[in-house]
């Protein structure tokens, strides 16, 4: 095992506290300056079924939860059987059981390294008097086994339980100690493995949903209208706590239509406003999406994608809402579609999304997905030290009586009066309208208004259409190209990536693709990848040289119909090799690598 970068899996019956164990493990690592990337699979139903958490640890940043396992923490025998086929050769097994009574032959088919049977349940039941504390015993044992500072485990456990009754807190701290002591004192033989000691003041740990919520808060969002839906609910739940602290409001509406209506109302009245939902909610919002477009009411809509269609697979990941994001809602109106590529980017994309929505007065759809939303990563504390945005930027706040809401301008953007502004009375409407807001079906005006609205998208991809590129083990991100010179430079930078295999993807798959590209390089295969962060409007400036600069293009998507590949086909004549997956699970680096190799063999 490489102690600089290794993967742990925890598995057990749902309800045994597997997920909590995983969360606390990631926090211990973050405090100890070890990076993590972790993921969980929820059971299909609320209870019953199995829980699985996978955590990858790294001294350097890790961008995905990895594939092969180095440490298996098995809460029961079924866990052992589930995980045994996924291990690397030297993997360690930590399994719950009575060390005395366990028959080692049960693990005869273990292809890995050392096996430790630890009496987690037994300690919890006998020493603590609470079987349910087994996961905290495990936390004590596993952190001790890995050599994390005991103080860090103590801190995270304490923080978690101190909101509970004091008896619960005490019991669990005792469980933690008992687990640690068992490993320190009683573990018969204890070989090799220790996490490296790294200097630092620790990292943040966040899920993709956390990062979106915090990103929104820092981007000046002061209103979220929402309706609970897996896997997006955590965004509204977190903002339900945080928004009132800054005078903002989380409004749980009666359904998604009402949420978006309220969001548009709030936005109209002058606050930065958003909603967060998943596919079914976005479907229901289709009509109001168009109102945002024709009424020119800024809005940010986060869609945390899940397995579709209809109710589909609520706890599984998929990238299958690009079609509705690009084309959903009847009629035609400008919109922007963005996809964050990482948890960090979840935070950052929100600022751009709000800026675009407000400046261009358009709907911005942010496509996250279950696999990103419920994944966790370490991030630098610096991220939350940046200055949050406080206000809506408005140079003019008082209007003369001739105020015209939909004034025809070169940029397509019209100055916006907000309710409360002296003299700015006007009507916003979803009917086609004259510039002053009165309904109009007059053909010439209609033509002009459609063009005005679409003019807003002109050059938007240049200004905001950053792309992420990976080649070898490096990552570059290009942003903004407002001048022609910058545009040229941006294009040139991408053109530099000439080579055999070019990979195009979007959203959360960046983490695995990045790693696959790096691994491919180690095997001597030349490949590069590009992930546009703004999917629409389309950033031709970078995608064209990328497609033209590679002999073979692979498009990676977690869907059946190749939604992005088809979209690109509108712009380019190219025949991509598809790497598709629509089984609800995210790609692993291995799967991407295999495709690269396959294409390389035929290139």
């Amino acid at each position: 095992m490489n102690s600089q970068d290794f993967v742990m899996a925890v598995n057990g019956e749902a309800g045994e506290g597997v997920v909590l164990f995983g969360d606390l493990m990631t926090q211990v690592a973050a405090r100890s300056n070890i990076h993590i990337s972790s993921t969980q699979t929820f059971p299909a139903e609320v209870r019953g079924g199995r829980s699985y958490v996978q955590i990858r640890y790294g001294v350097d940043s890790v961008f995905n939860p990895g594939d092969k396992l180095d440490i298996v923490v098995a809460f029961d025998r079924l866990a052992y059987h589930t995980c045994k086929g996924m291990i690397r050769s030297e993997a360690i097994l930590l399994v719950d059981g009575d060390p005395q009574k366990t028959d080692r032959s049960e693990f005869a088919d273990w292809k890995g390294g050392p096996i430790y049977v630890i009496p987690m349940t037994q300690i919890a039941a006998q020493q603590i008097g609470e079987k349910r504390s087994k996961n905290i015993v495990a936390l004590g044992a596993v952190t001790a086994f890995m050599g994390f500072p005991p103080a860090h485990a103590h801190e995270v456990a304490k923080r978690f339980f101190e909101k509970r009754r004091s008896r619960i807190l005490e019991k669990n701290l005792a469980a933690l100690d008992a687990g640690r002591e068992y490993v320190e004192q009683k573990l018969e033989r204890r070989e090799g493995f220790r996490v490296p000691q790294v200097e630092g003041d620790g990292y943040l740990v966040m899920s993709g949903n956390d990062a979106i919520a915090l990103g929104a808060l820092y981007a000046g969002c002061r209103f979220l209208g929402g309706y609970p839906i897996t896997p997006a609910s955590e965004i509204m739940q977190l903002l339900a706590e945080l928004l009132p602290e800054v005078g903002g409001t989380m409004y749980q509406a009666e359904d998604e239509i009402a949420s978006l209506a309220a969001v548009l109302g709030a936005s109209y009245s002058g606050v930065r406003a958003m909603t967060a939902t998943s596919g079914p909610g976005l479907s229901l919002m289709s009509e109001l999406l168009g109102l945002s477009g024709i009424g020119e009411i800024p809005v940010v809509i986060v869609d945390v994608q899940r397995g579709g269609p209809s109710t589909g697979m609520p706890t599984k990941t998929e990238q299958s809402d690009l079609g509705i994001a690009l084309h959903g809602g009847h009629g035609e109106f400008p919109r922007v579609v963005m996809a964050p590529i990482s948890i960090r980017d979840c935070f950052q994309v929100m600022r751009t999304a709000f800026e675009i929505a407000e400046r261009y007065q358009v709907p911005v759809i942010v496509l996250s997905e279950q696999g990103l939303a419920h994944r966790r990563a370490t991030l630098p504390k610096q991220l939350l030290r940046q200055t949050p945005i406080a206000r809506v930027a408005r140079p003019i706040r008082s209007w003369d009586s001739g105020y015209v809401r939909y004034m025809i301008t070169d940029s397509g953007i019209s100055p916006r009066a907000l309710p409360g502004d002296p003299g700015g009375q006007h009507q916003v409407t979803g009917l086609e309208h004259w510039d002053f807001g009165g309904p109009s079906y007059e053909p010439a005006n209609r033509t002009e208004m459609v063009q005005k609205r679409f003019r807003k998208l002109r050059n938007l991809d240049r200004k905001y259409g950053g792309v992420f590129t990976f080649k070898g083990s490096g990552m570059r991100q290009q942003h903004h190209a407002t001048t022609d010179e910058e545009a040229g430079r941006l294009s040139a930078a991408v053109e530099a990536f000439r080579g055999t295999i070019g990979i195009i993807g979007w959203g959360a798959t960046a983490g695995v693709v990045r790693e696959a590209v790096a691994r491919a390089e180690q095997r001597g295969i030349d490949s590069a990848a590009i992930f546009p962060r703004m999917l629409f409007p389309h950033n031709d400036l970078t995608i064209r040289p990328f497609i033209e600069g590679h002999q073979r293009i692979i498009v990676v998507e977690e869907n059946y119909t190749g939604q992005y590949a088809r979209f690109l086909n509108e712009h380019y004549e190219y025949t991509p090799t598809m790497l598709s997956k629509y089984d609800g699970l995210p790609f692993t680096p291995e799967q991407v690598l295999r495709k690269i190799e396959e294409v390389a063999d035929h290139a």
Partner: protein
Amino acid sequence: MPSQEGPRAPRPQASPGSGPEAPRASNPHREALAEAGTEAPAARKGRDYRGRLKPIWCPGCGNFGILSAMLNAFADLEIDPDNLAVVSGIGCSSRLPGFVRAYGFHGVHGRALPTAVGVKLGNPRLTVMVVGGDGDGLSIGAGHFPHVARRNVDITYLMLDNRTYGLTKGQTSPTTPHGFLTKTSPAGVIETPLNPVAFAISFGAGYVARAYTVNTRAVRQVIADAIRHPGFAMVHLLTPCVTFGRGSGYDFFNERIQPLPEDHDPTDFCKAIFQSDQPEAIYTGLFYHVPRPEYVASLQEKGAAHGRELEEQAAPRIDTDSLIARFS
């Protein structure tokens, strides 16, 4: 028919101060209104609130009377047009925001109430009105009405009920009476119509009244009182559609409209519901009035819903340190 006007002025206890006390959001208008009685006669006129658009309703449409009564009510309350928002859905009646000098939001069909909630939460200093039809509010929008009412958001909801879908030319609406022939009920409506007054009361609205467009003074007064009410107020306005309202024209209403009995007690929940649907007459007046804690005020108590006020602040109040501690 001015002789039928003003069946009964809403009771004095309908205005704030004399009824049960309830917290309310900071709305500068309301402060102004409270003092209005002690001031010199209102300087504003209804016509000061006329919008840029001329109403496009059919000649004789009941909506005209309501519009002018509403503008007069605004004048009575000396509402500041800069802080007035009028939100609607889609329908003949929903065209109204364009005819008012105010911030108007003519949204999509059936979503006026939740939109208005957002407007109010975004900027609680606004006076927020919702106007819409029976179809808009009771059919496609039926799911929003109970929730806005139970939350008791400080919004005044005027439902302009013409018992038909006017804009789409005369289909059955949720208030079309049993047996009526419409374009979608060529053999007669078999449904029992819904009763928005009973709905509003059972959903928890604190101010519920009904008026008939012909009685413009009553309409004006009831709208003014509804705006004064610190919470969700609903006014059911009967307004004949002269073009498609087969069987529900002026004659129909003129024969049936009656003021509520003198002794009606607007704090009696059951009685209010009972009186709202009687065979002998269509009663008008104040059915129910019992203030409850208002939503925006409750939110503000918890720190939320300060909305646009924040905009004036120099720096946001985010406590970055505690967030870092929380997420590490």
